[in-house]
């Protein structure tokens, strides 16, 4: 029997009111297959579970490459298409530089902490 890639949990989702607060389980968001699965899980929140307000909390994330940015942009577009909203929060200084250099901080809403992220919806 062919073995299936481990389908371990990559996101922790907590509902606070009508806002889905998402924490990343991994400290490093790398590796195409891993990023693909994170993307699938994020898109499922919108496409299948009908969430319209998503707060991504990056508190656990220590390293992230450009490969993950595409998933965030696609999630942002998906939420925009259904009049929803994506907010990012608690991004480490170095990772914040990734968003600034790519100018994605201009199109993605970024808040310093979870509380200000929740209040921004």
């Amino acid at each position: 029997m062919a073995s299936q890639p481990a389908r371990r949990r990559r996101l922790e989702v907590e509902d606070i009111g009508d806002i889905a607060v998402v924490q990343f389980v991994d400290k490093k968001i790398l590796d195409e297959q891993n990023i693909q699965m994170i993307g699938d899980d994020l898109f499922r929140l919108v496409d299948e579970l009908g969430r319209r307000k998503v707060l991504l909390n990056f508190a656990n994330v220590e390293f992230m490459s450009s490969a993950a940015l595409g998933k965030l942009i696609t999630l942002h577009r998906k939420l925009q298409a259904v009049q929803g909203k994506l907010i990012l929060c608690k991004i480490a200084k170095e990772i914040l530089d990734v968003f600034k250099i790519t100018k994605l901080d201009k199109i993605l809403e970024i808040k310093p902490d979870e509380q200000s992220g929740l209040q921004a919806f």
Partner: protein
Amino acid sequence: MTADPVSAAVTIPSELGEAHALQARIEDGLHACGYTDHDVFAIKLALEEALVNAIKHGNQMDPDKQVRVEYRITADRFDVRIADEGPGFNPSDVPDPTEPGNIERPCGRGLLLIRGFMSSVEYHGCGNVVTMSKLRNGHPGGDE
């Protein structure tokens, strides 16, 4: 206290796992030389982007092709040369991902990040060789 300079030349197969193992070795060398977390992050990110480019776009994940990595870590700077066996590319042909028409494209940001995080970046020959440097600007024990 500063460790002695570290130089190495390594040839790895076109496998991302091998690239990550090499990155971990370089990261250990940077920490041993007292580089700050900020500088280590910058170098790690540039290595990740450049090695993924070499393996995926250069060598097209071809297991018969290899990536040659030469690096040197001193107290003052980090230098690396990465060569793949692909046909190369012209960096100026890569669309600027910060342009309004491209900003929402899901890919194409690796080169921009390499330039943003490193002190200097140059492509050579047909574009299948990149050299990058990072001047150390932090201080041991301080992250700013």
